[in-house]
């Protein structure tokens, strides 16, 4: 039987200081144009934590707003605050930067993270009060060091500074004197990814209602690489994050494929569980510091706040069929192959139409499509348009071409079978997977019967190939009961019937 989606988590971490110090748009500007007006403007254009929490798309991401409710909010969203917005949602939370830095230290196994004493003392209690942060994680936070020690590492030892409210409050040291792969910059990037993955894992366990010990395998699908000079991408973020999250019975591995990696990883996890190799697998990912403020120049130029101020994370728990939860149907997998080509029609054909053809289904038979779910509030001012809508138009156009949809219904198709984007532009984070949590709930509630998750990856960015990549899968309601009914009498039921007959026969013999 197909494996099921037992639960999912979606978390954000508000990291405004990292926008300035670690986002590549800003760090590149600092190298090529250190006196630029843009760099001077960045601190004024960063949102407060309260504003990031009250941002409609963020509330949608953590599960307090349904995507259909978001679609009804007048666009643009950056200038509208949601009344009564909360830090915590049913899928996760929006963690403030100061508490996250303590989680980063708790996730550091090599003592490369140093935090200032007063900073730790000021925020330790708030960190410990987080509902998913257990005492063993809190205990990993050190008492802290003097600011002078941090200043020494940043000024003299190439450490990467950690800032809060524009003030230096800590640092990430290099883990090796010469090895570029263990430089302070790389260690910083990897630790932020790892710590946000830990937070996503903790919420996923809570949301799925399972014990930490139940998890047998973890797949990390972020876009970072950890290793040393002899194995640049050695890994393994998955097991490293599982350790901090306390998943004592888990091993794991990393899946990479740019933004398509989460969809690849969920398919791999579903296959591992269906095959019987593992009973419970969690797909997880943390966020990407490099992409913070990626479109900041365009946002500032147009008078918007810098909207890319949060790291994103998610995790999906996939387990054996429980007869209740929605299934990942491994008979309905789409894949862009080496030979598919790059024409948009061929791309959508391979990802959407081909798997449906194999099952005798039509494009409108899928209730909701979740391709790239980037928040258009971020992408439109930057000139990248409404990415989800562009994808829906392509899918709808293919349906028209195949005679499965009337041309007049094309506009309606994009809203009926589509969703308004709400995910932060963190590369892999918005790629298909943001909808899994919502889809699971909507299928359980009977609002929709199925959904297709589509992940796309820009492989050409790695300069190893000109190819693009993409995979897709379909989630639908649980079919265990139907399958059981179709299968007729089970082996256990036959055994029970024989036992009952033998018992009755024995009783009749005794009676005689």
């Amino acid at each position, binding site marked *: 039987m197909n494996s099921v989606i037992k639960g999912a988590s979606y978390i954000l971490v508000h990291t405004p200081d990292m926008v300035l110090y670690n986002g590549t748009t800003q760090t590149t500007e600092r190298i090529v144009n250190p006196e630029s007006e843009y760099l001077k403007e960045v601190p004024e254009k960063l949102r407060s934590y309260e504003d990031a929490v009250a941002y409609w798309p963020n509330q949608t991401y953590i599960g307090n707003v349904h995507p259909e409710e978001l679609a009804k909010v007048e666009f643009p969203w950056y200038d509208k605050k949601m009344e009564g917005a909360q830090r915590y949602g049913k899928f996760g939370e929006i963690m403030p930067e100061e508490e996250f830095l303590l989680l980063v230290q708790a996730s550091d196994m090599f003592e490369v993270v140093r935090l200032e004493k007063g900073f730790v003392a000021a925020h330790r209690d708030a960190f410990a009060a987080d509902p998913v942060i257990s005492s063993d994680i809190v205990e990993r936070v050190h008492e802290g060091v003097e600011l002078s020690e941090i200043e020494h590492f940043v000024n003299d030892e190439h450490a990467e500074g950690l800032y809060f409210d524009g003030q230096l409050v800590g640092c990430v040291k290099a883990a090796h004197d010469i090895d570029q792969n263990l430089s302070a910059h790389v260690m910083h990037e990897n630790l932020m990814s790892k710590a946000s993955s830990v937070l996503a894992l903790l919420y996923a366990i809570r949301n799925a209602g399972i014990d930490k010990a139940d998890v047998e395998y973890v797949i990390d699908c972020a876009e970072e690489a950890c290793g040393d000079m002899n194995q640049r991408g050695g890994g393994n973020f998955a097991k490293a994050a599982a350790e901090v999250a306390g998943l004592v019975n888990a091993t794991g591995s990393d899946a990479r494929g740019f933004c398509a990696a989460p969809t690849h990883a969920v398919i791999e996890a579903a296959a591992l569980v269906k095959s019987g190799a593992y009973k419970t697998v969690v797909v997880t990912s943390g966020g990407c510091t490099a992409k913070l403020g990626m479109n900041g120049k365009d946002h500032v130029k147009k008078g918007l706040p810098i909207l890319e101020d949060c790291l994103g994370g998610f995790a999906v728990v996939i387990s054996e069929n429980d007869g209740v939860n929605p299934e990942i149907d491994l008979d309905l997998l789409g894949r862009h192959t080496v030979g598919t080509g*790059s024409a948009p029609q061929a791309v959508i054909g391979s990802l959407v139409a081909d798997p449906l053809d194999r099952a005798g289904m039509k494009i409108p038979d899928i209730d909701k499509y979740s391709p790239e779910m980037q928040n258009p509030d971020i992408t439109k001012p930057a000139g990248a348009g409404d990415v989800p809508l562009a994808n829906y138009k392509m899918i709808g156009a293919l349906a028209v071409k195949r005679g499965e949809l009337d041309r007049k219904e094309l506009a309606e198709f994009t809203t009926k079978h589509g969703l308004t984007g709400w995910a932060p532009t963190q590369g892999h984070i918005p790629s298909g997977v943001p909808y899994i949590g919502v889809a699971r709930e909507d299928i359980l509630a009977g609002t929709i019967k199925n959904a297709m998750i589509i992940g796309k990856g820009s492989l050409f960015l790695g300069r190893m190939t000109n190819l693009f990549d993409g995979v897709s899968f379909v989630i639908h309601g649980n079919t265990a009961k139907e399958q059981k009914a179709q299968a007729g009498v089970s082996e256990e039921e036959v055994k029970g019937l024989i036992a009952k007959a033998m018992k009755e026969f024995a009783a009749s013999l005794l009676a005689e």
Partner: protein
Amino acid sequence: MAILKDKKVIIIGDRDGIPGPAIAECVKTAGGDIVFASTECFV
């Protein structure tokens, strides 16, 4: 399409729109001389 005949063309495609290789095929048939073609990811 004659506007591209014997013209030098730089192509920047979009991952979620029209990718570079697809534009390149069109430019070739229109007689353009492709000096650079790539696909970029804007998200």
